[in-house]
């Protein structure tokens, strides 16, 4: 149902304050990226929610497939030795 006259979809990311990552907050339609920033300002930062905005065309995002989640993420499940809590260290040893 999308016609050429429909504005494309952009995903919006907001940095809440300096020192924090940009975080995905939602999406909006805009004719181009510059206008997407203007719309994002009106839609997602009406109450000082951010100090910086990113927009990216939704169609440019490549995402992993949920059906691949097992193959992708489960192999890490049994590698508990990757976590510091795996190792029992005698309590006489300090600052480790």
């Amino acid at each position: 149902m999308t016609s050429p006259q429909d504005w494309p979809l952009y995903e919006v990311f907001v940095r809440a304050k300096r020192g924090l990552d940009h975080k995905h907050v939602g999406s909006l339609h805009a004719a181009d990226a510059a206008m997407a920033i203007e719309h994002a300002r009106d839609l997602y930062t009406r109450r000082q929610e951010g100090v910086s905005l990113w927009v990216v065309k939704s169609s440019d995002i490549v995402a992993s497939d949920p059906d691949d989640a097992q193959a992708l993420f489960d192999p890490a499940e049994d590698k508990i030795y990757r976590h510091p809590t795996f190792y029992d260290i005698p309590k006489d040893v300090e600052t480790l």
Partner: protein
Amino acid sequence: MYTQGLLEAIPKAVSALEDSERMARFQARIDAEEKIEPKDWMPDAYRQTLIRQISQHAHSEIVGMLPEGNWISRAPSLLRKSILIAKVQDEGGHGAYLYSAAETLGIARSELIDQLLSGRAKYSSIFNYPTPSWADIAAIGWLVDGAAIMNQIPLCRCSYGPYARAMVRVCKEESFHQRQGYHAMLSLARGTPAQQRMAQDALNRWWWPALMMFGPPDTASQHTAVSVRWKIKRFTNDELRQKFVDFTVPQAQFLGLTLPDAQLQQAADGHYQIGPLDWSEFNAVLKGNGPCNAERIAERRAAHADGAWVRAAAIAHAAKRAARAVA
């Protein structure tokens, strides 16, 4: 509430057992309070129910701008005007968050807008009532937004991730809407006798429609079971309505106003019991025969048509900017 049209469209539900294994995994995820995300497999009935519910909610926000927008140019002070503009802008924003959430389910924005403008889509019956006085704006904030919050807070825990996240954002903003309404109502209730009469008149007209926003009584609501199992809905209509009544009666008493219900009384358990609701009125408004149904849709159509040149100009501007960037 904002999705009353669902009353007519009960999903064929679990007949969509496309894949019983996937179905079991889907339900297990919901039972474990995990969210369903856009790219996850989901039964078609879940997808269709959510598209209808989220889009009806979005349409309600968009149409909801009209009764209040009516008073922006006539607000009684510059501060009240600023507040009202901010509130109406929020409603537009809520509509935009929700349309975006609906789009993650695979429906285009243009199709959603088309459903609203063609009259095929439903929106909350409450926005088909007129706002003849300033006190109506106060009453809408206090009662209509108050009822909306009651319904929307559980939706923040809805099983569908994008809807739940949009509702968190909406609820944060909605509290301002209710408080500014009560504040405006308080000013009138403590004002001149004429202002007090205005406040009472608005309460008389909005009380019953606000209670009907929660939808038909549980005994007549057919789609609750599936929606509860899928954690789209967490409380029944009557539970939410009762909670709203219990919160609101003392607020009305504080204003010194009288709720237009001769049968209203507090039961021994502390809950307030209301008199019977006139569901024939609710059904008439929902079917398109409310005081302002035709006017609201006509206004939305006009706004969409009047904005056509802006949408086209933005596309032309984007094309020009892109061409210059290449040159």
